[in-house]
């Protein structure tokens, strides 16, 4: 075990996989940093420090710094993957799927199906997502709800450095296109990480981080920590929460969720995406359909409101799910009728 930050878990996993497999190639904007400048390549790393040192080690063929052209980045990743490589592309901000969605949605995600199961597209697209930095409406968004809905993609949302390691390795070795969502506000989170260079966490296996038995709380990414905090507070008051970290939203571990709800009969999902057609709705619908008889209260979502993400500190805090809102939802389901 080593202790490292979430961002370093990203970097070290990429580094290890590039050492292990010469087909792994990375590409993105400023991921080398300093190209074409007086300071020269690697004068400065990528803005998230998740690619520092790769260029020096693996060279320009495998570490490709790109112009600001997200469609071309994702398209190139698609072409690399169809041609036998394992590209790991970085979208600097998840919000930039806006300028590159076609290559994700209509190309990568559908190749295998459209081509009758005869091609492989083992591409990983990493993107920094989430609010908390007052970066406003175009640099703070969650996009898993959009991408989870797209058949052909796998969607991963790690909540800890160890999960980054295990899930990113799985993503890079996976033969399907994988969206790997890194929460900006977790980059500096520290945690224990296994040293095993084959440590992998399989997709579609959620993690029960608290076992309580009275209410099921499901989340992922940054908000998982809030759910755990609420669970710990309530535990002290004798209320037991099952807290489930989804880890991947596609594939979805329905079983872990439904098993818990069958016991608790009470379901709260906490998600950072807007409320309409989101992951919160997706899971409430799942539970309502498949755990109907177990439910003792209406399934609840804690999400931001149906608004863009505001800038000012006070507004962003009011916008985001909070421990207060989560606790209130838990109490709503506990006190139902």
């Amino acid at each position, binding site marked *: 075990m080593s202790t490292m930050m979430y961002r370093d878990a990203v970097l070290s996993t990429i580094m290890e996989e590039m050492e292990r497999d010469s087909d792994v190639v990375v590409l993105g904007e400023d991921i080398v940093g300093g190209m074409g400048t007086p300071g020269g390549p690697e004068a400065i790393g990528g803005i998230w420090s998740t690619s520092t040192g790769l260029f020096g080690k693996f060279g320009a063929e495998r570490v490709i710094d790109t112009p600001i*052209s997200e469609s*071309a980045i994702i398209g190139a990743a698609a*072409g690399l993957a*169809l*041609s036998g490589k394992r590209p790991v592309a970085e979208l600097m901000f998840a919000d930039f799927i806006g300028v590159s969605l076609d290559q994700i949605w*209509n190309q990568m995600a559908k190749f295998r199906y459209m081509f009758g199961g*005869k*091609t492989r597209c083992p591409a990983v697209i990493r993107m920094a997502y989430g609010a908390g930095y007052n970066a406003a409406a175009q640099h703070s968004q969650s996009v898993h709800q959009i991408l989870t809905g797209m058949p*052909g993609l796998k969607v991963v949302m790690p909540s800890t450095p160890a999960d980054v390691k295990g899930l990113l390795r799985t993503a890079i070795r996976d033969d399907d296109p994988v969206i790997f969502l890194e929460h900006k506000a977790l980059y500096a989170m520290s945690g224990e990480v296994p040293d095993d260079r084959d440590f992998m966490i399989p997709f579609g296996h959620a993690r029960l981080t608290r076992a309580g038995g009275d209410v099921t709380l499901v989340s992922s990414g940054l908000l998982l920590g809030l759910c755990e905090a609420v669970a710990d507070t309530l535990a002290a008051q004798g209320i037991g929460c099952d807290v489930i970290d989804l880890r991947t939203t596609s594939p979805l571990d329905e079983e872990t969720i439904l098993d818990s709800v069958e016991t608790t009969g009470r379901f709260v999902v906490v998600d950072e995406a807007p409320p309409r057609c989101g992951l919160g709705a997706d899971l409430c619908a799942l539970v309502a359909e498949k755990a109907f008889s177990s439910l003792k209260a209406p399934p609840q979502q804690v999400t931001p409101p149906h608004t863009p993400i505001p800038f000012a500190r006070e507004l962003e805090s009011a916008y985001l799910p909070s421990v207060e809102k989560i606790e209130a939802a838990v109490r709503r389901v506990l006190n139902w009728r």
Partner: protein
Amino acid sequence: MQFSRDALKAAYTRMKVIREFEERLHVEIQTGEIAGFTHLYCGQEAVAVGVCEHLGAQDRIVSTHRGHGHCLAKGCDVDAMMKEIWGSREGLCKGKGGSMHIADATKGMLGANGIVGAGAPIAVGAALASRVDGPGPDGLNIAIAFSGDGACNQGTTFEAMNLAVVTHAPCIFVFENNHYSEHTGFQYAVGTARDIASRAEAFGMKAWRADGTDFFAVYETMREVLAHVRGGGGPAAVEFDTERFFGHFEGDPQRYRAPDELSRIRATRDCLTKFRASVTSAGLLSDSDLDALDTEALDTIERAVTAARAAPRPTPEDVLSDVYISY
């Protein structure tokens, strides 16, 4: 011309097979048996074949919505393609893709594409893959993005050209200027007094221009282009002036054409007629040689249609497979 008789026959046959494939689809589509949107490549055969005759399976191409010609030229199986267009589960894509999504990665054919302009970045990726692999004895494997005169206005095409230049990727942008994007003229939509190739030059790559209805012009131009790109000279562009003999899609009334345009281009700009004239006047092949190849091509298509018509249909369960490799 440095062609052997066999090479000439092979090239002619490929063009003729594409021609007959499309002419036959044009007829069959009227019967309603074929589903979906189909865009025929008739008229442009010299481009696909003149380009692809230079390529091996390790060279990759990315195609467009008008992809049958590129697929056939790159070696996709005629029968499997026809079955795909018929929607059979024995089709090249098991009936899941259809006309606009034919692909065969084993042949270096990375897909027709229903999204105009989407192919160019994918081709750059394929070229970057070959940059990782490095040159073999014949230089670098290359990747080709086929694009129309309409596709050249899509932002993705520009981004791809710039990225290719920046990364010095062995990528060739082949622009097939058939003067129309759907019902709109190239003169209107490409907002420059100059041609498409000039735009590519402005992105910093070498560009060539040639008559796309002349197989030999295409072939010889591509020889130069490929020498440049395989040798590590970076990306390149070629603009071929060509003609589309049918409507944009099947059913298009083509009122945007000049009254005599279709008969004129069939008469003066048919790459097969031109090929025949060149090789017979040069005494390389005789009319009867070519007539025999014509018959063979027609037979090939006849057999493919018969097989496609008889091929097994997909079952409802087939909907669910091939989404993921594992899930």
